[in-house]
């Protein structure tokens, strides 16, 4: 089903089914076979050059709502944002007209060096001011609201007094940004650092949540300690589905998305996982969908 006739380019319709993270290995198949996908999300950084990649993304955009998910802006960096990178993101947003734009509560660059990862922040007043300043600058530059995703974490700083969900709620209050609630990341972070995922979820301001992420993780034994790694390399785990069912009762209108990056399976597997998310959503929310909205 092509969505181009039914949905405006700048927003997803209410009750949108679960979408998928679209990776380069599947793009040609999607363009050729035009499968029934509610919407797709791509990593913005992969489309900041020219040539075939961005041309294919435009072809996808003609048939599906597209969300741009940034992974490299380093909103949590102590220094100023990389103006060149933000300009490239703005150009891509203007070219693709995505339904959603999102980035992470994390830092990845320092002193001009990119660490190619989403590094955790200390949740302090100083960090809050820095991230709020950067989100405001990003939203001003793009002229639109951006969703901020909670990261998965493997460490906590000794001086980090503000609980993560409260930190996010404060960013919403200061900047008017939205939130991307990654339930797998909540599960991974709470398992690795200690914490109650349900309490974490309940501390989020429900009206700010504009998207939900679902993904798989793996368990690693590190010197006798089990650490969950957010590798996006397997089906969604049962505890994450359970958390998702709680999340959708709080944010019933936020569209969900399946992310899969390592050990990428066939496209059909991703679509089956998205359909499973829709069934889980329906079972959890039932007939209360409209009432709860």
């Amino acid at each position, binding site marked *: 089903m092509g969505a181009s006739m039914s949905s405006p380019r700048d927003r997803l319709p209410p009750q949108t089914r679960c979408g998928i993270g679209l990776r380069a290995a599947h793009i040609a198949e999607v363009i050729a076979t035009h499968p029934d996908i509610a919407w797709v999300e791509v990593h913005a950084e992969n489309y900041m050059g020219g040539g075939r990649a961005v041309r294919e993304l435009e072809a996808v955009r003609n048939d599906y709502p597209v969300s741009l998910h940034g992974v490299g802006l380093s909103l949590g960096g102590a220094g100023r944002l*990389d103006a060149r990178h933000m300009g490239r993101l703005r150009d891509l947003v203007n070219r693709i007209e995505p339904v959603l734009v999102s980035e992470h509560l994390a830092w990845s660059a320092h002193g001009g060096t990119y660490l190619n990862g989403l590094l955790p*922040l200390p949740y302090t007043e100083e960090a809050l001011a820095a991230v709020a300043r950067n989100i405001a600058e990003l939203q001003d530059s793009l002229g639109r609201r951006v969703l901020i995703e909670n990261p998965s974490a493997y460490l906590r700083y000794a001086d980090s007094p503000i609980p993560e969900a409260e930190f996010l709620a404060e960013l919403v209050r200061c900047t008017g940004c939205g939130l991307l609630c990654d339930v797998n990341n909540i599960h991974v972070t709470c398992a690795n650092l200690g914490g109650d995922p349900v309490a974490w979820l309940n501390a989020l301001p429900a009206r700010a949540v504009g998207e939900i992420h679902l993904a798989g993780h793996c368990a690693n034994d590190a*010197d006798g300690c089990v650490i969950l790694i957010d590798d996006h390399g397997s089906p969604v785990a049962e505890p994450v589905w359970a958390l998702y069912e709680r999340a959708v009762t709080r944010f019933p209108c936020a569209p969900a998305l399946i992310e899969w990056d390592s050990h990428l399976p066939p496209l059909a597997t991703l679509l089956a996982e998205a359909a499973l998310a829709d069934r889980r959503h329906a079972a959890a929310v039932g007939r209360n969908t409209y009432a709860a909205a």
Partner: protein
Amino acid sequence: MPQLDELQATVRRAVLSGDASRGASAIDGDGLPPAGRLQIYRNHYLITLTEALAATFPVVARLVGERCFDGLAREFSVLSPPRTPCLFEYGGNFPIYLAAVPTLHALPYLPDVARLEWAINAARHAPDAPALPAAALTRLPAACLSSLTFTLHPSTRIVVSRYPIDRIWRAHQPDNDARERIALGQGRVRLLIHRDAEGDAVWRLLPRAEFLFLRALRAVRTLGEAWERAQEADAEFDGGRTVAGLIGAGVLIDYDLVQPKP
């Protein structure tokens, strides 16, 4: 210095060097010790950049084998971290690094193969630019033609090697099972790399005269000067036909008319 900046400088050092001694005190020590927690981020850095380099330099990876490549990529990613968040821009210095690794001197062609792979990668992702219409020059008075200069498409690269890197590259494509023996002393090769109309990066061998011609055009020499330069290598060289071919291939995308010197 603000605390956040200092903390991020410390974590950056730990990720790049593996030395967690300075960052440990800033990290909650419950369960897995801080050094082990920082190591997870370091592993992610090394693994994802190794994957990115393997995707950009697949022939180099096949030539040295996966284990050797992983070790090289890890060392390189620590010595030369990314300067932008776009991974397709990462690895421009990898050929220089390979040339400096003593254990690779038995494969003298390896840095040049890497330069070819980097040129292909750069061509694949270079910015878009509109092509010149095939008939663009036909409206111009014939007397002007020798005074034209040209703009090359941003994807255009020229790679020169004293080794047959074209044959080495072809022999190590995934769909090529044929085993062939390639003599290294075949003379210099000159390759033109650019993006075709479908948006794919392509390359072909350049005869010496066309190489001199293109190199002159790239240096914003006039068509007349480039033509003369090419005819030093090949008296039969036809600059008009060559320009038409380069416009057709999307290599030349704009022109300018230089006023003749008084």
